[in-house]
C-alpha cells in the first residue's frame, strides 16, 4: 500500500539554525500539507500546497517558514531560524483531491535546544 514517508524521523538543532524537513507524498496525489503537533496537544494546520503554490496557510506559518516541491517527488518544509517553541512533531500529509482522505506520514520530531 502506498504511504507518505518523512525524513529524518528525529532532528535536533540549536536555536537560530535552519532546518529542512523532507516528505515524499504518495505519487499520484496532488495536494500536500504540513501539520505540527506540540507534545500532548492537538494537531495544528500549517500550510497546504497545490499546483506548485501555497493554497492556505495558518497564522503559525510566518516568514520563518517556507515550503517547496523541488522535484517531482519531494515536498519540503524549511524553518529559517528555529526557536525553542518550534519543537514539535511535524507531519506531512497528502491527498488526491480536495475534501478527501489525507494520508499522514510518520512525522519528524524536531527538538530545538
Amino acid at each position, binding site marked *: 500500500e502506498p504511504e507518505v514517508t518523512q525524513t529524518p524521523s528525529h532532528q535536533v538543532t540549536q536555536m537560530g539554525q535552519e532546518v529542512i524537513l523532507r516528505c515524499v507524498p504518495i505519487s499520484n496525489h496532488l495536494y500536500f500539507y504540513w501539520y505540527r503537533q506540540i507534545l500532548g496537544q492537538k494537531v495544528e494546520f500549517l500550510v497546504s500546497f497545490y499546483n506548485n503554490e501555497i493554497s492556505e496557510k495558518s497564522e503559525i506559518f510566518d516568514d520563518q517558514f517556507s515550503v517547496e516541491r523541488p522535484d517531482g517527488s519531494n515536498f519540503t518544509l524549511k524553518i529559517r531560524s528555529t526557536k525553542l517553541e518550534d519543537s514539535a512533531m511535524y507531519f506531512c500529509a497528502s491527498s488526491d483531491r480536495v*475534501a478527501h482522505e489525507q494520508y499522514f506520514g*510518520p512525522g519528524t520530531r524536531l527538538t530545538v535546544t
Partner: protein
Amino acid sequence: QQPVQSPQAVILREGEDAVINCSSSKALYSVHWYRQKHGEAPVFLMILLKGGEQKGHEKISASFNEKKQQSSLYLTASQLSYSGTYFCGTEMRSDYKLSFGAGTTVTVRA
C-alpha cells in the same frame, strides 16, 4: 475556526459504547475523523460531507448534522484496539485547510 470536541476523555470497558461530538460555530463543508495512537501519526477513519450523511468503519460510525454543524462519532461494542485519541478535522469550505479539534482520549480496558 477550530471545532470543539467533547468529551475530553472517556474510559470504557470492552464491549461498551461511546459517543464523541465535534461542533463548529461556522458552516462546515466536511468533517474528517482520525485516530491517533501514542507516538504514531493520525490514521484516517472517515469523512462526512455536508448533507447529513452517515458512514461506518467496522463498528465505528459517524453522522453529520448540517443544521447543527455537528458531527458525532459512535464507538460501538468497543475493542481494546479502539484506544487512542480521536480528532475531528473540519473544513469550512473546499479550501484545502483542515482545522482539528483538541481530541478525545479513549481508553478501553479489558
